[in-house]
């Protein structure tokens, strides 16, 4: 069974090739057949593997499939091999299944688009790369997938390339993540140089052998990998690309920029968790980055008028939670939140897509309203996802996963009370911006009439995801609510158990109560400002300080403004000043020299046979002279 794992990336890549080569010649019906069908097959394979993994786990709870060795030179022998353990099985399952639902949705969503087959080609390539990233057993293969998803992200953000703004957004995403990738590449070099392998399990083993806890190499390597993760997962300070990435088609945002690709950073850190546990300071940095990001992004989300940007900031903030969990050593909690987040955030984007489609591509939430009656199914599914995101207690998945993270932040040996407090504030913010969105869009009077209603292929994935966003949480519940541990137990097959610290007067039930309180406060504030007294919300921004703060948050704490001045402009300025710098002269000089040499040697090709024979004779004489006299 497990040896079928290579099929998971193989189906999408085959479909990508078909669509890329014959795409324009295929009929409109055949395109989704390949595009969606291939992902469906991958999903079936990963479900089978998951099932098998649960019923009869492989020895040692992991399985490696070596396909072939790429090259074998001087100890450097990268293998094309896939590694299955609880972590990669779970993430592959989520990626393929959520991916399948989103593909199904896109089959209808993108139907009218002229780039129908191109879209599916890119999406399939993305799924293939993502699975390669997750399944690769060495960091080189992981990096291949890493760059592959980056490329697809770039291609899909700029999918509607006729609008230069989309191209700019795509470039921004590519360049900003490239900053992180550079750090990550350096990390890979460091690891290979010091430990002599890139095969992940060997690498971890070697690291344990050679490096003590807190050794500078371990810290440096972990920090460099963290750099890559921060770039890919849009965490502070490299989060600026994600809101702009919303320029892509909505299914892209759902799949790549919410459910899967942006969590690659989480995967990377979880995969190399041994390295991070050898570098406590780096791990603490992960937690701090996560906590800071979740707060800052939460504030930014409060002020956005664009529905997709709200969701983008919310994604940043939720991934912040995952980073926080990783940082305090709550590995399985991070993965739990990854899974529930994949469900509800994908659904939120799909719902947003439905709304945007039915309102003539309107993105501004303040031009929407009263959609509860117009699009009832979209409303109920969106509400389910929104509640899950905000953490509606007891019944939603988001409550359980987030509650677990928050409790672990307190109770972990590496956790701290400040982080816990930040996380609870984050819940308040989440609840506030989520219900602000829901109240503004679905309640009040109708502002833009609905002109088109979604069909079956769009709504079925939404309903499935809505169910998952609710029931997904029951895989793992706190002791006072049933005490189910199936998810945590499963993750512990691959990831270590969190070390608990002193509880310090806090209990899990108390922590959950604080979370609930924060949720309710957020809900009430949203209700107060956006349903009861809409004018108060405007009054808040009226005074200078309120206006400034609003503006500040709207522009994501001025990060773009700052980067523009600190990095972009100086670089462009230097580039402009340095247009004809002397370093160039060296190269053009070399080119000129080469050309000059060419003109010289060209004269030897006379076409005259005498001359050629003379060449042969002269050469022989010289060589005879050399061997005789040297």
């Amino acid at each position, binding site marked *: 069974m497990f040896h079928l794992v290579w099929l998971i990336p193989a189906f999408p890549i085959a479909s990508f090739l078909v669509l890329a080569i014959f795409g324009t010649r295929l009929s409109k019906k055949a395109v989704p057949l390949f595009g969606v069908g291939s992902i469906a097959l991958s999903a079936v394979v990963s479900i089978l593997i998951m099932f098998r993994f649960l019923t009869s786990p492989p020895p040692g709870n992991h399985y490696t499939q070596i396909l072939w060795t790429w090259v074998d030179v001087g100890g450097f022998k990268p293998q094309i091999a896939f590694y299955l353990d609880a972590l990669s099985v779970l993430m592959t399952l989520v990626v393929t299944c959520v991916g399948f639902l989103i593909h199904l949705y896109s089959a209808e969503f993108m139907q009218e688009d002229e780039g129908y087959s191109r879209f599916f080609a890119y999406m399939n390539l993305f799924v293939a790369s993502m699975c390669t990233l997750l399944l690769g057993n060495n960091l080189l293969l992981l990096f291949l997938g890493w760059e592959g998803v980056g490329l697809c992200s770039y291609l899909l953000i700029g999918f509607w390339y006729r609008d230069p703004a989309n191209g700019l957004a795509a470039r921004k995403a590519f360049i900003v993540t490239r900053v992180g990738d550079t750090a990550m590449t350096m990390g890979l070099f460091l690891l290979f140089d010091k430990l002599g392998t890139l095969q992940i399990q060997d690498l971890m083993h070697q690291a344990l052998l050679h490096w003590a806890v807190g050794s500078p190499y371990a810290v440096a390597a972990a920090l460099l990998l963290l750099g890559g993760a921060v770039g890919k997962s849009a965490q502070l300070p490299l989060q600026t690309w994600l809101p702009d990435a919303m320029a892509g088609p909505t299914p892209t945002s759902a799949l790549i920029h919410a459910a899967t690709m942006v969590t690659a950073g989480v995967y990377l850190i979880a995969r190399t968790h041994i390295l991070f546990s050898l570098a406590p300071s780096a791990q603490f940095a992960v937690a701090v980055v996560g906590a800071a990001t979740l707060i800052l992004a939460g504030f930014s989300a409060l002020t956005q008028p664009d529905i997709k940007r709200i969701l983008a900031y919310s994604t940043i903030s939720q991934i912040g939670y995952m980073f926080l969990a990783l940082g305090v050593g709550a590995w399985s909690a991070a993965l739990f939140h990854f899974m529930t987040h994949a469900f509800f955030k994908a659904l939120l984007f799909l719902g947003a897509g439905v709304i945007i489609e039915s309102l003539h591509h309107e993105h501004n939430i303040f031009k929407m309203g009263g959609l509860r009656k117009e699009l009832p199914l979209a409303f109920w599914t969106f509400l389910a996802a929104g509640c899950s995101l905000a953490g509606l207690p007891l019944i939603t998945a988001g409550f359980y996963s987030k509650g677990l993270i928050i409790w672990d932040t307190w109770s972990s040996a590496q956790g701290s009370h400040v982080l816990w407090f930040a996380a609870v504030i984050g819940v308040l913010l989440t609840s506030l911006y989520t219900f602000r969105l829901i109240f503004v869009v679905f309640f009040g009077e109708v502002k833009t009439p609905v002109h088109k209603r979604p069909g079956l292929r769009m709504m079925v994935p939404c309903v499935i995801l809505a169910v998952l966003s609710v029931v997904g949480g029951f895989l793992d519940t706190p002791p006072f609510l049933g005490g189910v541990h199936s998810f945590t137990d499963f993750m512990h097959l691959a990831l270590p158990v969190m070390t608990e610290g002193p509880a310090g007067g806090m209990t899990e039930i108390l922590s959950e109560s604080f979370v609930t309180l924060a949720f309710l406060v957020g809900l009430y504030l949203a209700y107060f400002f956006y349903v009861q007294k809409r004018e108060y919300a405007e009054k808040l921004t009226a005074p200078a300080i309120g206006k400034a703060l609003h503006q500040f948050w709207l522009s994501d704490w001025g990060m773009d403004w700052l980067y523009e001045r600190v990095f972009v402009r100086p670089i462009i300025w230097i580039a402009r000043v340095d247009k004809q710098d002397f370093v160039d002269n060296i190269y053009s000089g070399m080119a000129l020299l080469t050309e000059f040499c060419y003109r010289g*040697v060209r004269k030897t090709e006379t076409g005259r046979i005498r001359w050629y024979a003379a060449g042969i004779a002269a050469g022989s004489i010289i060589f005879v002279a050399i*061997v005789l006299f040297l």
Partner: protein
Amino acid sequence: MLPLLIVTAAAVVVMLAISIKRSHLLAVWLTLVGLAAAFFSLWIVAPLTPIQVTPLLIVDGYALFYMGLILAATFVTVILAYGYLENQSGYREELYVLILVAALGSVVLVASSHFVSFFLGLEVLSVALYAMSAYLCARKPPLEAGLKYLVLAAASAAFLLFGMALVYAQLGTMQFGQIAAMLSGGACYSKALLLPGIALIITGIGFKLAVVPFHMWTPDVYEGAPAPVTAFIATVSKGAMVALLLRYFYETGMQHLGSVFLVFSIIAIASMIAGNLLALFQNNVKRILAYSSIAHLGYVLVAFLAGGTRAAEAVTFYLVAYFITTLGAFGVVSVLSNGERDADVLDDYRGLFWRRPVLAGIFTLMLLSLAGIPLTAGFVGKFFLVAAGASSALWGLIFTLIVTSVIGLFYYLRILVALYAPPAETGEAAPAGGLPALSRGGSYVLAALSVLLVWVGVYPAPILDAVQRAVSTLRLF
């Protein structure tokens, strides 16, 4: 021995078939069947190896591997030649006899362990090649090519023969194995005879390999000869010579005598530099490929100089990659050629992508492989060359290799740019009834070669295995 006999018999049979009934298709089929039979007979022979057949020939795993390579390359050439000659008028069938004879010469070369068989193989190969280069004797360029090749090859063969004579005069034997024994046995010999002998042998070998300063015939002959024949000269004749070079020098250890090593280094460096420089601003694709082949043989010499099993493996693997790539590149040229002239000017390729996207794609692949871009066979090959060189710390040579590869990129890119340039609107209206159909066999062969190219680039292990097994039978000095 069996493969040699089959190839010989095939040549006679094809000749008789021509005299009984002149049919292009029949001749091609007979040739292909003969080559395939010879190819598969390798497996029959394999369990018997290594055997010494008379003092002249040794059939071991190494020889068998190269025989397979040569026979396969000849097979491809024949298919290309069929499509090419279909457009030509006049007698066409004799080319296959010549090709078979040339293949026979090459096969003898790779199995030779004696100066006599060395020279015999060389001459059988050369004589067939003269006629093949001038095969389309109604046109001027092939005639010129044939004549130049004849005169220069004859001259260089004289050098070679004289060199052999000198070595024989000194050591009193012409068998490689005995030469090795005498050299290692510390037999006293005079530098004045032996070393010039080796230098002159290098002249003869260098001419066939087209390395500087014996390279000047290459572009003229490549340009003039019909495209499939050029493919044959570039691959089979050179490959056989490299096989012999490895066997001769590795088994006798002569490259470490006196300054012979220095001579080879000079040749390698000069070839890499001159080959790449000369190609820079060429406008004739066949000439560009000729110059690039000079440079490639320079690269091969780098690994050759490294010495040892590793180096022999690297050279052999590189040759496999080089065969695939060069056959593909000249295959594209020959598929595009018509009854009047070969498609060899850069302008013939301008905007090819917009007319024949698949063909342009294949050509792109071949060029990328020649340039050594990753995921192609050429990259893996070059990688092994550099690794072999590095393991012997030949830093100067490796440095030259890398710098000249960068220069080389320029002219490959020039062709690529032309391929994808917007089609020139020079009043050249599309011919009525669309583009002329390409030869079917040629297209299949090209497709197969491109698949092979990427396959070897991504998954070189099986080929590498075969190479390692083959090279392990070489008795290193």
